[in-house]
């Protein structure tokens, strides 16, 4: 593409160049907390807060400057006065809109971290749109979560350690997000793993928590094998090329991107690398089949769960894919619509997780599975070339999922006496905690994707693009997932906020066992296929243990929580009530964001609304190498504008650009030209419709289902109130029952969900645990039989043999002179004879 020159310049700025501070500050904060936390007035939490706040500020500043930088490029760089910074020039191309979209190079500041075989590998910050987005997101959400935690874990035995770990956790994520090379990325990745271990096992006095922590770390670690291997493959694939062309190395992410798109690397190499790396993402982002650690991870304190599941930890996998997208793009042939591994896994995860969310009694587990399912969406998006929507979904999902978790936290904190069991300790809380309720509803709508809440824009965009890129089946999966999401969220909502208060929510401290078991039994009765008129004894008996255990595996929350909180919380155990400001403020902020954040990239509303696309998505343009290499501190950047735009190419009409054909000689691409679906009203309606219907059905069902259960409680709880309620429900019982039991229960909820759950616990989870166990047994066996018997045996054996030889020879030393003499002369004679024979021929 021939271009004439007409200079424009990219702006940069202090915040961009010193973005590494964003990660460094929390890291230092961690150190400070560990060192002095205990002595601080607020036990170190203030350090954590301050550091996160500082990061947030810096991140915001960086974001602003990044926006300026982009604008400066697009507007020809008038604003770039003074802020000239070291970057190679970029070659503009023409976007869908036909307007000039030059490539915006990331702002890199790096130091030599280690060297090997003469190559120097750096550590530092490489900031581009994606990085900026997540930096800000992580910093901001961490800040909110820490504010929330101030009150939530107050009085905890390890209050200080909690904040330390939380801070380090954010630091890890930040390090990874701004990673300049793969090793740094691994660094952040693993630090998060470590912190998740510390945080999930925060209350390690109970064995189950310790076990959950172990499981989380271990499962992720299994995935990390892929990360190591993948990195190795990519490194050696890219290294030589990177050294030759970009004066870089095979760890450098930019170099990897460029190499992947350069067409130099063999496809099989890319494929292997992509698969290996994606295995790591499966582990980290809880994709099927390594998702089982996520629900267990709920053993951790709620703020941890919210942080883990919104913006950090689990997003890491998605981020990795998005970060070195070209590798996957090429490896999985996403360019020409190959059905990619990623997409398939994503699709499966969406459905499986959604179904699992159905049968959870623990509110946090519902949310956990919903996270898994949402991550499935992101992977689905990335796997089908919908890069932008996926990243966008990370953005929106962070807000509402975090919000939901915090709501759950607030409930358990103030209403349900630290229980998370919806069936036993919640219900009818909407009056008791109005704000929480409001926030919850908003986030739920956002999660379910109701216009105009955040989820609507991002999720539907994914689905839309999936369809647009021609993956019809996955499109349906997407819709299905959406519907299921609506349903299980309704169920959770209903159980939590509607109906009658139960257990702790009703102010009861120790739960009435008969009440529970009866309730369980009843659920059985309803869920039992084809037995509308009531369960037979053995059915109930057969099912009871399962659900009871489901309930019991959450009990430890109360118990230990009490241990740690008695001093502080006894006062307001009495009555459920709204939480205090420290808990509410974050929730409400998040709720607000959950409402509006969707407009950050509201494609349907037109070009000018697509800010994420404009500022985050890298531009798929060819960059001349010599300009790329020209970078170096102090050099000003000449940005070349096309006078005559040659063939105006738009990615939509399948024109071959970056990612589709090898870049022209002397130029490199850093990002493939992903296509963007043009929003169509029909699809949007379809999506909305599905969700709405789902809602309708679900609401109806829940009212009926759990309502009827209440009726049976009549005899046991106070009479008067329920009679009224019970009568009301009895009226519309029949047709809904029919609908529900014959359609949903029998065909959807019960068989599939149960089957899925059975699958999950008995097969997948069992495997994960089994692997551990069997490895131990193998170890035992090898040790006992091979090591001790064979290897060591051989050693001791040789000694034994030597000593026994001696024993055998001892008789020769008989002590009898005559025998000695005989031996003496015999030897001499034999020697003589032999040697005579040998020598004398």
């Amino acid at each position, binding site marked *: 593409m021939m271009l004439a020159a007409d200079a424009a310049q990219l702006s940069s700025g202090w915040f961009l160049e010193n973005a590494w501070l964003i990660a460094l500050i929390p890291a230092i904060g961690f150190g400070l907390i560990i060192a002095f936390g205990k002595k601080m007035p607020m036990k170190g939490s203030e350090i954590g807060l301050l550091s996160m706040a500082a990061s947030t500020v810096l991140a915001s500043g960086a974001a602003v400057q990044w926006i300026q930088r982009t604008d400066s490029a697009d507007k020809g760089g008038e604003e770039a006065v003074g802020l000239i910074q070291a970057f190679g020039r970029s070659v503009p191309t023409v976007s869908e809109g036909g307007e000039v979209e030059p490539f915006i190079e990331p702002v890199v500041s790096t130091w030599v971290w280690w060297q090997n075989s003469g190559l120097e590998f750096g550590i530092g910050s490489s900031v581009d749109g994606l990085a900026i987005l997540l930096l800000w997101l992580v910093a901001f959400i961490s800040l909110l979560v820490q504010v929330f935690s101030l009150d939530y874990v107050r009085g905890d035995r390890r209050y200080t350690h909690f904040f330390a770990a939380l801070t380090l956790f954010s630091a890890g994520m930040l390090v990874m997000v701004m990673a300049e090379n793969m090793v740094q990325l691994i660094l952040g990745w693993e630090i998060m793993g470590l912190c998740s271990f510390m945080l999930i096992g925060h209350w390690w006095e109970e064995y189950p928590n310790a076990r959950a922590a172990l499981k989380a770390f271990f499962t992720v670690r299994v995935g990390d094998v892929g990360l190591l291997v993948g990195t190795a493959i990519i490194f050696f694939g890219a290294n030589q090329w990177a050294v030759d062309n970009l004066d870089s190395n095979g760890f450098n992410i930019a170099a990897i991107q460029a190499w992947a798109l350069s067409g130099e690397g063999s496809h099989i190499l890319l494929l292997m690398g992509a698969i290996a790396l994606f295995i790591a993402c499966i582990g980290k982002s809880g994709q099927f089949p390594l998702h089982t650690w996520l629900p267990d991870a709920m053993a951790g304190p709620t703020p941890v769960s919210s942080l883990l599941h919104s913006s950090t930890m689990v997003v890491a996998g998605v981020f990795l894919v998005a970060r070195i997208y070209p590798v996957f793009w090429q490896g999985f042939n996403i360019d020409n619509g190959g059905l990619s591994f990623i997409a398939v896994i994503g699709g499966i995860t969406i459905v499986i997780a959604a179904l699992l969310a159905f049968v959870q009694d623990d509110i946090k587990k519902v949310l956990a599975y919903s996270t898994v399912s949402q991550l499935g969406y992101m992977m689905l998006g990335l796997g089908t070339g919908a890069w932008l929507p996926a990243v966008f979904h990370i953005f929106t999902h962070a807000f509402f999922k975090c919000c939901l978790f915090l709501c759950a936290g607030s409930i358990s904190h103030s209403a349900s006496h630290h229980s998370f069991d919806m069936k036993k300790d919640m219900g009818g809380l909407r009056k008791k905690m109005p704000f929480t309720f409001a926030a919850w509803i908003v986030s739920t709508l956002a999660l379910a994707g109701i216009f105009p809440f955040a989820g609507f824009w991002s999720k539907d965009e994914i689905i839309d693009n999936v369809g647009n890129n021609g993956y019809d089946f996955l499109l349906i999966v997407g819709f299905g997932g959406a519907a299921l999401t609506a349903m299980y969220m309704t169920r959770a909502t209903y159980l939590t906020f509607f109906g009658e208060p139960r257990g702790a929510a009703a102010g009861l401290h120790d739960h009435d066992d008969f009440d529970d078991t009866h309730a369980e039994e009843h659920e059985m009765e309803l869920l039992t296929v084809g037995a509308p008129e009531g369960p037979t004894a053995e059915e109930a008996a057969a099912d009871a243990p399962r659900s009871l255990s489901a309930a019991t595996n959450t009990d430890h929350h109360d118990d230990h929580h009490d241990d740690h909180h008695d001093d502080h919380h006894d006062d307001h155990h009495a009555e459920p009530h709204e939480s205090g400001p420290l808990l509410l403020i974050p929730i409400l902020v998040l709720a607000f964001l959950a409402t509006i954040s969707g407009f950050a990239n509201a494609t349907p509303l037109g070009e000018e609304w697509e800010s994420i696309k404009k500022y985050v998505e890298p531009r798929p343009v060819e960059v001349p190498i010599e300009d790329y290499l020209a970078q170096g501190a102090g050099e000003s950047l000449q940005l070349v504008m096309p006078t005559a735009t040659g063939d105006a190419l738009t990615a939509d009409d399948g024109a071959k650009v970056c990612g589709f054909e090898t870049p022209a000689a002397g130029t490199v691409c850093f990002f493939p030209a992903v296509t963007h679906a043009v929003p169509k009203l029909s699809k949007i309606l379809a999506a909305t419709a599905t969700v709405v219907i789902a809602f309708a059905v679900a609401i109806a069902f829940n009212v009926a289902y759990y309502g009827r259960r209440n009726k049976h409680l009549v005899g046991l709880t106070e009479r008067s109130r329920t009679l009224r309620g019970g009568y009301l429900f009895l009226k519309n019982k029949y047709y809904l029952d029919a609908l529900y039991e014959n359609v949903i229960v029998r065909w959807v909820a019960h068989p599939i969900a149960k089957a899925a759950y059975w699958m999950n616990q008995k097969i997948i989870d069992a495997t994960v645990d089994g692997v551990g166990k069997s490895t131990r047994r193998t170890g035992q066996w090898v040790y006992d039989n091979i090591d001790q018997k064979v290897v060591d045996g051989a050693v001791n054996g040789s000694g034994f043999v030597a000593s026994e030889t001696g024993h055998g020879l*001892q008789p020769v*030393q*008989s*002590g*009898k*002179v*005559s025998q000695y*003499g*005989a031996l003496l*002369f015999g030897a001499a004679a034999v020697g003589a004879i032999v040697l005579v024979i040998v020598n004398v021929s």
Partner: protein
Amino acid sequence: MLAVNFLLLGAVLFCIGVYGVIARRNAVLVLMSIELILNAVNLNLIAFALIKGTVDGQVFALYVVAIAAAEVGVGLAMVLMIYRNRRSIALDELSEMKG
């Protein structure tokens, strides 16, 4: 010729002596057998001296005779000593130390 017969005689004496040393249990007899060997040696030396026509052999033989006397002297002293201590000169009983 003559000297060869001397050598043969020497060989025979040697064998007898060796047999005696190995087979006999009585210390004195063993001593005597050793004397036989030494005499075999002397015969050899003399015979070879005869064949080669040099005196070295005979000189050597004289040394052997002299030293043999010394050896036997020591030997008998020892036999006497054991006899004192254990009233027996059967060598088989001298197997307190073995292994």
